[in-house]
């Protein structure tokens, strides 16, 4: 499972860093500089990514050319939105350093810290 995730990530990395739509062959060539991997493996992964909606493809001649459906930033934004929305009620899943809070409460935090800083400066 983990392996597959990493392979998908590596493929997406190549697709995102390319300027134009890429073929399976081009992704394969790029990947083969770091690892030995079969053409069919890459083709299967890219087909899966297309099924999942991460890649869009267009037929060109006998092969497909693939583009990312969305940018990495869009994926990151969506992922972080979920994480931030999960807040404090899913602490068994992940533990935040700090919950998000409204601006007026943030200002109150800043005042508390500044008071402490001043107190320390005055006593030293």
């Amino acid at each position, binding site marked *: *499972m*983990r392996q597959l*995730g*990493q392979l*998908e*990530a590596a493929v*997406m990395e190549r697709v995102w860093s390319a300027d134009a739509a890429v073929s399976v062959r081009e992704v394969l060539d790029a990947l083969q500089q770091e690892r030995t991997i079969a053409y069919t493996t890459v083709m299967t992964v890219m087909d899966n990514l297309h099924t999942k909606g*991460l890649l869009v493809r267009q037929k060109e001649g006998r092969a497909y050319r693939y583009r990312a459906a969305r940018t*990495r*930033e869009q*994926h*990151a*934004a969506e*992922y*972080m939105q979920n*994480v*931030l*929305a999960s*807040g*404090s009620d*899913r*602490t*068994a*899943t*992940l*533990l*935040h*350093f*700090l*919950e*998000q*809070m*409204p*601006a*007026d*409460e*943030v200002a*109150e*935090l*800043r005042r*508390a*810290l500044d*008071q*402490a*800083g001043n*107190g*320390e400066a005055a006593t030293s």
Partner: protein
Amino acid sequence: MTVPVVLVVFAIVASVLGPRLLRRGDWLSRSPRMGIFAWQALSGSVLLSALLAGAALAVPALPATASLAEFLQSCLMLLKAQYSTPGGAAAGITGAVLAVTVLARYGFCLARCVVSARSSRLEQLRSLALVARRNDRYGVLVVDHPVAAAYCLPGRGRQIVLTTAVLDALDEEQLSAVLAHERAHLRGRHDLVMAGAEALEQAFPRVPAFRAARLELARLIELQADDTAVRRYPRLTVASALVRLAEGGAAPASALGAGGHSALMRVRRLAAPSNPLGPGRRAAIALAAAALLAGPVVLAAVPAAGIAHDYSCPPAAVASHEDMAALGCLPAAQACPEGAGRS
């Protein structure tokens, strides 16, 4: 019959008075590790007394005897005695249902909590493989995002995740303090502490003590992680990291509930000098927590200890050999010494 009643009363008293006592003053915040222990002991004690109350209804006080054969034999006698009367049987079945329900409900909720947390973490790790970059210098995953967020995914394949906004907002020392805080969560398996508390609240939503325990534990694990961070970094560094991340992660007021209260408390606590409880008070808390857990067990065991010496075959059981034969336990009944029931 008195044992189950006493245990139920114990559970009610503990769940009503316990949270009030633990919340009084700030002494648990001064030693959060003891605070976590105290709240867990309280929850465990309430759960245990409910469980034992059911068990005590279902099974009459078990005699403490030396030999296994004798023990089994007297068990049979006592069970037979209780279940031969309609009232006794009804009470026994009620007790068994209570005990099994309590245990099964908690077990189910705990399993559901752990499984759903794990699968949602796996899903997150898969997304992170796509969107995050590994930062080997700090051993963390970094996501490109303008809102400051720092968190950890515990369990298998545990990870600390930061957004790029965190790297921008904090200096080197503040960042190290944040990482120390998150590592304390991971090492302390605070996710399991919370899974246990969340499952208890889900299983018994009508018990306010369990809700209180979940909320207080969520607060105390943060304090404990802060305490781990201040062992290596100045208190004000941790406090300023907190404030800077709050500033970098500020959300529209409508989006969320009250995260600010606990953060404010953490900043004030970090801004003040360290003030842990002394060893005497810590020992007192440990003792009280141990007593809370031992209480229901002792209450359930008292009659058993009493019965150990004056055990005898109940007359009702001896009188009906036919019934015992029907239950398939004639040998045990016959093994009862002649006249033991009448002496």
